[in-house]
């Protein structure tokens, strides 16, 4: 069955990933330099210059270039990132075997060994701490012994920790992408997703992300998930790109929903800079898609309901210890109260926030109207809303009454058309019965 949710499940950075080196936009000279370096290895020859370092700001396609080139030219890619580089043993285990052409079937992407291998150490400037020297030494050893080409990737090539590595490499710099390059690719995605995008909206996204393609694409996806009729307006673009990185939210949600222990669920929440209120809105909004069993849904919501009560109590009584129960219940409390596994991740922007922001202008009009009426009718705005407004809506269905309402309250055109619309919706309500 087609599930409209699914299309937002996959990050667009993966869904719209270029398939060839040519499709990767920007940094043309650097790309060329990389291909020239790789050329002898592509042709199955050895080369003196075994190691290259690609460096530059995040989100501009360094790792992508290596991955796509490996696929395109038939290399098995042995890839290690920050996590794998945390200690010398894992580096040795993975890259050590690979570089010496021993049985490393399980480490390759395709499952078959080809004669061509490419070793990638990603995010090497994340190497730090007391073990850093060990790890670097291991890498240097691997570089010396390897029969295969090695790529290092860093944001900052001049980080002193990696100076020894740097001296072994050919350096290739990658620069921030120009706005034109980012816009070109965003438009391409819009076309493939059948999105209607106003140029100004794409400009906002591209500019806010300052040459970061990954960030731009994820913001575009967020804006799309918020849009109603597949149109991306500048307003949506603004909301999307001003938010803390959306992929952070996706990651946090995934970590929470797939947590097996209370501790790991809670830690997922603690690690992020996201506002807990915002996360709560995301979690609540997505719950029914993640837990379809009524028992689980009820149990998960029970946790959220209690969490909200603790939060309010902590603020009312200024007893902040209660806040930790709030945080634990909206993360661990939800995930560990249920019996079933979470359904495949399909996280959407909270609908209630979307509706609330759409109705913002309308609500402001209504509030103004309620305040005007409140003075005239000697009643609070709540009372006016509940005990007068529904009747007024019926009363003004008679045109002369609408006129006299307008002169009675000296309403402007906007407020008048608001009340007219409200009146019509109430009558429609009747006709549907």
């Amino acid at each position, binding site marked *: 069955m087609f599930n409209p949710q699914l299309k937002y499940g996959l990050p667009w950075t993966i869904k719209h990933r270029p398939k060839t080196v040519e499709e990767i936009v920007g940094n043309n000279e650097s790309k060329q330099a990389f291909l020239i370096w790789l050329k002898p290895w592509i042709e199955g020859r050895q080369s003196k210059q075994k190691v290259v370092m690609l460096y530059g700001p995040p989100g501009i396609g360094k790792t992508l270039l290596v991955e796509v080139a490996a696929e395109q030219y038939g290399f098995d890619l042995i890839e290690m990132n920050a996590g794998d580089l945390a200690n010398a043993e894992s580096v040795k285990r993975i890259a050590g075997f690979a570089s010496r052409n021993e049985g490393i079937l399980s480490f390759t992407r395709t499952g078959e060994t080809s004669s061509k291998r490419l070793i990638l150490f990603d995010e090497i400037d994340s190497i730090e701490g007391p073990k850093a020297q060990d790890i670097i030494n291991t890498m240097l050893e691997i570089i010396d012994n390897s029969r295969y080409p090695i790529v290092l990737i860093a944001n900052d090539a001049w980080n002193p920790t990696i100076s020894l590595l740097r001296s072994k490499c050919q350096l290739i710099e990658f620069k921030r992408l120009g706005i034109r390059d980012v816009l070109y690719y965003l438009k391409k995605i819009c076309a493939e997703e059948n999105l209607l995008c106003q140029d100004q909206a794409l400009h906002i996204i591209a500019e806010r992300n300052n040459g970061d393609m990954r960030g731009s694409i994820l913001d575009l996806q967020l804006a799309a998930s918020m849009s109603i009729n597949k149109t991306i307006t500048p307003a949506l673009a603004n909301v999307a790109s001003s938010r803390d990185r959306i992929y952070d939210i996706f990651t946090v949600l995934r970590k929470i929903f797939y947590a097996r222990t209370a501790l790991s669920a809670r830690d997922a929440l603690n690690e992020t800079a996201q506002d807990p209120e915002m996360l709560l809105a995301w979690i609540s909004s997505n*719950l*029914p898609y993640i837990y379809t069993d009524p028992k689980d849904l*009820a149990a998960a919501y*029970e946790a959220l309901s209690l969490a*909200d009560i603790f939060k309010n109590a902590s603020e009312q009584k200024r007893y902040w210890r209660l806040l930790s129960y709030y945080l634990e219940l909206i993360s661990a409390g939800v995930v560990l109260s249920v019996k079933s596994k979470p359904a495949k991740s399909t996280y959407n922007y909270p609908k209630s926030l979307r509706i609330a922001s759409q109705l913002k202008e309308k609500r402001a009009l209504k509030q103004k109207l309620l305040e005007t009426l409140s003075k005239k009718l000697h009643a609070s*705005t709540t009372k006016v809303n509940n005990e007068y407004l529904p009747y007024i809506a019926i009363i003004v269905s008679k045109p002369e009454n609408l006129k006299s309402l307008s002169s009675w309250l000296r309403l402007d055109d906007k407020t008048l058309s608001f009340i007219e619309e409200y009146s019509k919706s109430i009558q429609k*309500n009747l006709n*549907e019965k």
Partner: protein
Amino acid sequence: MEEELMWAEKYRPKRLDDIIDQDDVIRALKSFAKEKNVPHMLFAGPAGVGKTATAIAFARELYGENWRENTLELNASDERGIDTVRETIKERFARTLPVGDVPFKLIILDESDAMTADAQTALRRVMEIFARNVRFILTCNYSNKIIEPIQSRTVVFRFNPLPKDKAIERLKFIAKNEGVNVSEDGYEAIWDVSAGDMRKAINTLQSAAALSNIVNSDIVYKVVGMTRPKEVRELLNLALQGKFSDARDKLYELMYNYGLSGNDIVSQIHREIFRLNTDESIKIKILKTLGDYEYRLMEGANEEIQLSSLLAQIVLIGYESKTPQRER
């Protein structure tokens, strides 16, 4: 004089003598006004029986044509906390001397039972601070929601629901004045839906008159149907059918489109429970859950979370009633 659109306002009693059926209260108020000796007062009673109207009429009686200058109307449910109330009183009102020969001003604080106990405690201090030059009239639906220290500082007047004959008499007067043709069963129907709440009765009459030249019971019930969002019943039915997401969409509509508060929604669900076409045991289960969540709404901060959770619990009730429970 500007034309009042709303009949409830146009026919609001202006003088103490116009107030219907609260004779004891009126007698006492008249003597206060005559002696210019006024205590703090608490008007308690159901909606639409004339508490606020009486307070304003009293101000007129007391101050004559200067009543507006000497009277401050505040709504407890609209003011953001007691600090605003205090500041408003201090800055705008209590500083200047009363106009005329009455040595104090009058503050009408409507819906004072909307205040939390803490706010009421602060209000009590405000009443003491300004006691020399300000008198308070508090109105509320339930006097037991007002803290004891305030009750003991006020003269409490209880307002009764209007009796049927008096209410219909008033409606007939309005109908005649406005040239509306109302059948006898029309009046009966209005009484049936308003039950002594004159505001509701007059609003219903005026709405019915806008829909039809002749107001009969059909038109009256039509008005009632229009004013009650059908979304509440739909929301309940969807939840019982297990359609959580659809039910929640209705919830959003009620909250963000109709502007209903969490309490409004719960109380409307409450009314609908008894009309549900389902097993009686299910009704009781929903009732228990509903009570629980009305309580949680009071204790919590995020109405949307509480109400979504309520829906999830109702979905579960509906689900368990359809699936045989092995445990039993």
